[in-house]
């Protein structure tokens, strides 16, 4: 039905895509996987005729025999939304914030002249029902900011399927969503494809997601498709070295020793954290929201403890309380026996450092690496051998001492995360909080950073509190894990045990929702290696 024939794209002379050929049949789910910069999204934008300025496409994109590359912009406008639909990664920003969801869904019909106003409104209602947003809770007059990420992604799907396009392209549609929400969206997409006979091109960096719903998968590397095969065949055989590398990285198990020490390092006892909400009436009482409700746990010296939960469960709030950034309303947090509070002395803060998710946003772009890494010295006073320690920290994270004179923009995402780890190490802390520290990284880079973390832990006896929504990562690098839901720890225990036999219903639903590559498909890996 749709066929890409030796599609190549250049942007101002730089090759972006090279000889991309693939085809999709109606009712088929086609997975396109690869790391960032591999050309997955460019392939989608080329299909939609929405390539950035200065881009030139050659080859052919045939939809039911018609070459889309030969069409004028006006003709493409007619095809987009009617026969070609696309949804994007970031549902939080994908909808116009000042228009109601009803108007945004109805617009697809109006713009293509397929319905009058009243008719379009009725159709919008039907579409929202179709994607699971019912009239009682989601009237057409709702605005996007009143909806959660998963609900917004459902609105995006509704507006894209309103005209039953022949091809639906979904570019990382669930990457920004929680696992249970992700499962819901993937199921919805799968159902729509079957019921409407659409073709779905699912673009993702996550092999497990394609394993869950794709019929066929293509692997992209540096603008080329290196391997295309039915999903199961691709996962079992892994013909191309790049496919093997990706597969290996996504199931990579860092070489780490289980924690041995018994000495408690961080102790959290009955911690409660309340937030004020805006008042409902002018003089009424201030309503409170309990973000963390009676949480207790102990983190031992040299141990890796995972904290998993979905967005809004309170894990970030708990993290901020542990860092002593916000006061707690009840309970006590101690580090090495001393109480943590916003008023604690700097020397204590120096014993605990943090690495955040976003390697792009957490550095001042105008500071050099040297200054960024030395920042925590304001807690301890700048030691005489500061220069040496900066060099040592850079070497420890696998960078070169010469990198100290560079600016953050000169580094890749993985390297920046290494800089963030070097910054965390500089005060020689005993505890490092890793707040979604590898979530933004590509699988291969992620595997390297996880190795680095395991290595540093072994060398320095560090303790990690690993906060993440990504169950597969937590599973691979923690000794114990805690599952948080609605401000409470609902289950805690040895990581292997919790994942093998979860007891709490919430943990069960979380593990069931997380996409995984079936065990059976992995086996041949050992056969290959042997």
């Amino acid at each position, binding site marked *: 039905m749709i066929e890409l024939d030796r599609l190549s794209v250049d942007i101002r002379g730089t090759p972006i895509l090279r000889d991309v050929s693939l085809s999709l049949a109606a009712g088929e789910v086609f997975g396109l996987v690869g790391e960032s910069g591999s050309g997955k999204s460019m392939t989608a934008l080329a299909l939609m005729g929405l390539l950035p300025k200065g881009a030139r496409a050659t080859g052919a994109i045939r939809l039911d025999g018609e070459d889309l590359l030969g069409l004028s912009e006006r003709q493409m406008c007619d095809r*987009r939304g*009617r026969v070609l639909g696309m*949804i994007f990664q970031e549902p939080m*920003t994908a909808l*116009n914030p*000042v228009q109601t969801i009803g108007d945004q869904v109805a*617009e697809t019909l109006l713009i293509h002249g397929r319905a009058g106003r009243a008719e379009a409104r009725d159709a919008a209602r039907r579409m929202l029902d179709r994607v699971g947003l019912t009239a009682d809770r989601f009237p057409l007059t709702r605005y996007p*900011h009143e909806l959660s990420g998963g609900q917004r992604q459902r609105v995006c799907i509704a507006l894209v399927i309103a005209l039953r396009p022949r091809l639906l392209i979904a570019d990382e549609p669930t990457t920004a969503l929680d696992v249970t929400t992700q499962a819901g969206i993937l199921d919805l997409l799968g159902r729509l494809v079957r019921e409407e006979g659409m073709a779905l091109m699912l673009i993702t960096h996550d092999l497990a997601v394609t394993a869950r719903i794709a019929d066929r998968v293509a692997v992209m590397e540096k603008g080329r498709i290196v391997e295309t095969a039915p999903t199961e065949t691709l996962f079992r055989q892994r013909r191309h070295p790049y496919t093997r590398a990706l597969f290996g990285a996504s199931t990579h198990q860092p070489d780490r020793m289980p924690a041995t020490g018994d000495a408690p390092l961080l102790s959290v006892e009955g911690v409660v954290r309340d937030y004020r909400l805006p008042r409902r009436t002018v003089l009424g009482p201030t309503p409170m929201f309990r973000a963390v409700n009676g949480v207790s746990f102990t983190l031992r010296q040299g141990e890796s403890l995972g904290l998993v939960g979905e967005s809004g469960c309170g894990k970030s709030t708990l993290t901020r309380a542990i860092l002593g950034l916000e006061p707690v309303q009840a309970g006590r947090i101690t580090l090495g026996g001393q109480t943590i509070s916003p008023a604690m002395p700097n020397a204590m803060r120096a014993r605990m450092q943090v690495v955040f998710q976003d390697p792009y946003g957490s550095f001042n772009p105008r500071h050099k690496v040297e200054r960024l890494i030395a920042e925590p010295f304001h807690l301890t006073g700048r030691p005489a051998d500061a220069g040496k320690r900066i060099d040592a920290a850079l070497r420890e994270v696998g960078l070169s001492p010469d990198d100290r004179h560079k600016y953050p923009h000169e580094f890749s995402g993985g390297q920046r995360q290494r800089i963030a780890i070097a910054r965390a190490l500089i005060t020689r802390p005993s505890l490092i909080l890793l707040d979604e520290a590898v979530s933004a990284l590509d699988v291969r880079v992620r595997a390297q950073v996880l190795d680095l973390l395991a290595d540093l832990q072994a060398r320095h006896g560090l303790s990690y509190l690993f906060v993440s929504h990504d169950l597969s990562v937590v599973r691979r690098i923690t000794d114990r894990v805690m599952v948080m839901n609605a401000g409470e720890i609902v289950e805690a225990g040895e990581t292997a045990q919790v994942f093998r036999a979860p007891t709490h219903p919430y943990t069960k639903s979380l593990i069931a929702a997380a996409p995984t590559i079936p065990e059976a498909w992995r086996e041949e890996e050992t056969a290959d290696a042997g």
Partner: protein
Amino acid sequence: MTRYLLTRFASLFATLLAASLVIFALLEVVPGDVAAVMLGLNAAPEAVAALRDQLGLDAPLVTRYVTWITGFFTGDLGTSYTYRVPVAELIAARLWVSLPLAIYALALSTVIAIPIGLIAAMRAGRPADSAIMGVTQLGIAVPNFWFAMFLVLIFAIQLRWFPAGGFSGWDKGLWEGLRSLTLPALALAVQQASIMARVTRSATLETLDQDYIRTARAKGLSRTQTVLRHALRNAMIPVLTILGLQFSFLLAGAIIIENVFYLPGLGRLIFQAITQNDLIVVKSVVMLLVFAIVLVNFVVDLAYAAVDPRLRARA
């Protein structure tokens, strides 16, 4: 929404109260005895004392403050020291020139600025954009009095379409009044429109970078449809901010243009009052301007909420 309105109202009154206290206090500490100035250097002390009494200058501070504020509601703001006419009448007459002039100039500026700002944004980096950016740069750089004289030379002296100066008054009909305000309004609008066009352009460019624009394009909207249906309203917030600031400026800041066109506006009134130490006029005109500016900001706040549903929800 009610909450939003109430908080805006509360802040409106608080600002007005604070401003009135500051204005009153400032003019109290200004040196110089008004009565002595009015009667000249050789006045007898008794005469000065009598005048002070007549002007109510000897009353306690609080009484004078309250009298002044209540005067705003009753229309009795005292008598000008130099013109010897009621201040309220003086201000009202000038307001009938300045307010229409400000609105006229702002309307012209908006009508010019928003379309050309949008065109520049849609053609960013292309010749049309460069041309608009160049012209608006010039519009900001050229002083408005120079531009005013230029307009007078062409449209008043050469073409004789509009009067070169003076104000006919509204008695001769709306058209005559507008005719005498057209050149001044245009002279004022050029600079304001240049600023607003640039703000519109950059705000629109910023919204065109947003994800929801990509969604709209994927639905099949053309570039122009995307701008008009999705980008414009989202770009309005910074534009509204500028609009509010410009109105406030135009109301009182048109003094040079008022001089060029010999218009009896508020700017000239306040300038004369200051040079003549006519503090009672200064006090009330300044308060009136503060009131107008606070009111404009209030309206702008309401406009924000009308444009952006998230603001309605937050408050």
